[in-house]
């Protein structure tokens, strides 16, 4: 929306990984509109607070609805949006700090409800917007303004966290792989349930991991990222866990739960099963007659 708003005073730094994520989302939304004959206004983008969440204002092309709220609360806001409006396509855009640190408490409950939303998490291993402090995914021993002796906390493994929380669709990719990311995001939006697309999206200013992800044969740097082998079965949970535990960055679809029944379907089915009649306020009050 920034094109209409010359006063918007935020810009991503040159080379920021989030540019790639923006392009992938734009393309996935256009594709969805055409394929499903669904207006873009049927999509709601729920944005976290961080450089990453600002994507909601920088998005170009057909404009979805957006809500840019408070730090860490994308999932509960999405839960409320979907509660009475399962027809809406809800897409979360968040960062590693927003989603995994302050908002980490919400992953488990929404995964267990199997909320039908897609979260795109831009992991740059740092708090970008607040200028470079350590985040849960910052490397162990990394020196940042809040870790002067080097980070003492172990690095969190987000992919393992999602899997153990019960996330039913999990993809991991790189901000440089725009085309593949767009496909994964489309696929995740089609998945009937909670889906996470976790993107390594380097912060060129505070934590530039491009070289580490890609590797550099000349300098003898092994790439952190590796493509998920073709013979990986995404319905095999333990195989997904093994990929998540490599300590590296698998690229592709790790896991897709085949028996996914989303939250709103569970409620609908339960109501049908129990078959309780809805009484009117008048009938309830009459039942209290003296």
């Amino acid at each position: 929306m920034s094109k209409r708003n010359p006063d918007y005073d935020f810009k991503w730094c040159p080379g920021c990984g989030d540019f790639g994520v923006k392009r992938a989302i734009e393309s996935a939304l256009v594709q969805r509109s055409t394929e499903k004959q669904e207006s873009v206004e049927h999509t709601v983008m729920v944005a976290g607070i961080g450089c990453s969440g600002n994507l909601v204002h920088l998005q170009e092309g057909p404009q979805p609805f957006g809500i840019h709220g408070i730090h860490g609360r994308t999932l509960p806001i999405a839960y409320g949006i979907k509660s009475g409006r399962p027809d809406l396509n809800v897409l979360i855009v968040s960062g590693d700090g927003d989603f995994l640190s302050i908002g980490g408490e919400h992953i488990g409950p929404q995964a267990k409800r199997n909320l039908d939303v897609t979260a795109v998490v831009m992991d740059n291993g740092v708090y970008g917007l607040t200028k470079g402090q350590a985040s849960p995914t910052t490397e162990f021993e990394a020196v940042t303004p809040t870790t002067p002796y080097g980070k003492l906390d172990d690095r969190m493994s987000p992919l393992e966290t999602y899997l153990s929380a019960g996330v039913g669709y999990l993809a991991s990719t790189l901000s440089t792989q725009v085309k593949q990311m767009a496909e994964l995001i489309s696929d995740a939006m089609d998945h009937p349930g909670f889906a996470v697309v976790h993107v390594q999206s380097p912060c060129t200013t505070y934590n530039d991991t491009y070289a580490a992800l890609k590797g550099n044969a000349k300098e003898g740097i092994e790439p952190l990222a590796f493509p998920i082998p073709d013979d990986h079965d995404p319905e095999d949970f333990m195989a997904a866990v093994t990929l998540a535990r490599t300590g590296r960055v698998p690229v592709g679809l790790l896991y897709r739960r085949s028996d996914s029944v989303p939250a709103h379907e569970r409620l609908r089915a339960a109501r049908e099963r129990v078959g309780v009649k809805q009484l009117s306020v008048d009938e309830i009050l009459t039942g209290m007659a003296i």
Partner: protein
Amino acid sequence: MSKNLVVRFAGEGGQGVVGGSEILAAAAAQVGYHVQTFATFPSQIKGGPAWGQASISTGPLLSGGDYLDILVALNRYAYDHNVQELREGGIVIYNSEDFELDEGGRAIGIAADQLARESGNPRAANMIVIGAVAELAGMPLSYIEQFVTKRFSRGRPGDEQIIEGNIKALHMGAEACKGSFSLGSPIEDPTPIEGERILIKGFEASSLGAIAAGLDTFIGYPISPATTMLTFMEANLHGDDYFVGQSSSEIESIAAILGAGYAGKRAMTSTAGPGLSLMGEGLGLAWMAEIPLVVANIQRGGPATGLPTKTEQSDLLVSLNPGHGDMSIPVIAPGTVEEAFWAAAAAVNWAERYQGPVILLSEASIAERAEDILKPDLSLVREERRTVSDGSVENRRYEGDGVSPFPVPGGPGAYVANGSEHDEPGDTTHLPDVHVRMTHRRFNKLDVLMDGDYESERTDAPVALMPWGGSKGSARGAYNEIIEEGEDLGWYYTMYLNPLPPALLDELRAKELVIVPELNYLGQFSRVLRSMGVNAQSITQYTGLPFKVGELKSSVREQMRAESGKLARV
């Protein structure tokens, strides 16, 4: 003969003391008495001191009554800690299986459990006690028999035996204290009451008021004394148009109802102090992004975990400003069970009308008490809906200096609902003039909420009494007595605490003194009134219990005397 009867059942949590008082009240209501119940619970599940009280009257009840006519004490502790409130000439019924009293003449021991076993129904101990209470109070047993018969005629096999068993227990209880002694003045027969009456608790009234006004989404996290609204909604909303859910925290509750409100729903949560504290940031977002929602905050006592099961009115200031930054959250505080219905309906409507968060500020003593009221006339309930954007002011959600059309996702007018300062389309902007313009816009929106009504009496009196919330009943009791004694004292009352009806505020500003009885230490409402140019002084109490009429009356008179002394010196 007497017009009122106050009976307290005191014992331990899990002994059915609250149930006992509720059965007695329901039975009395059925034969045409006015009733009110009140209870205090321990915060543990089994054990811990608890009591339930039934106040029964031939006329409308303002409060639960200051003194007990009959105290049922199931253990020594219950006796020791409640007997002070027994009126002179009152009677104690004690559980003689647990302890002995040598209270020359005004105490009677009953072995309720043993008698219940003898009656063939070991669970009928409450009925034994109620039989004894009725006998001592001079209330015909037929009243209670009627109730028992109605309650257990559910068309199930065995109903008849249950009815018979309970009636037998009732008579055994009455028999056990026949000829001992009785209350000096037995309660008068009830006079029939006109109209369709219901017996309803405060939390039920506020839940139903909200549903009647069109509420369709309720998401909450359990916390005393607000859980009952959540479970009521879960038990009563089943249709396709409704969503009720248990959240994983109050942070999730507020964000979720905000999401629902954003998506076009009329959404509500219920909570109490600790939960409200966690909702501060989310309420600020609702104010900033202009999202309709209602938070029912059922006040308990104290900061932190405080007094979870007691009553207090100490969340007014935090309700007005629950979060950081400039905001002024609309607050509606019911003073009676009946008002709880209308206040909740008004809260839903206000949220829709001004497109922002509203706090329904209730309290434990209202939420948990049962009262007989006339069935609310549903034809009087309004169902307001926000004006939805038709997309004609494309992408300019925050256009203008007041309420503007609301774009609903799925429809036209896509925008970013923004918690950062933003311009008309909802994009983040930190320019000084935009912050000024949007701040004005948000405060201007309160102008559409100036329609709250209020009560006023003796408006010429220089000194006025103005309670708020659940202190209304005791304050009215005290007021009536003061007026009967020939004093001149004005009366003002409203549920609409923010924004206050402007005409009311004008009247209050003209008073020499406005006396505000309230259940908190700081004198929160009088602080607010003083900040608005009203010379208000509080009478405070912070025991976790409601005001007693007699005590409040003396405090009001004392303040009146001090004020007239001051005037005389001038």
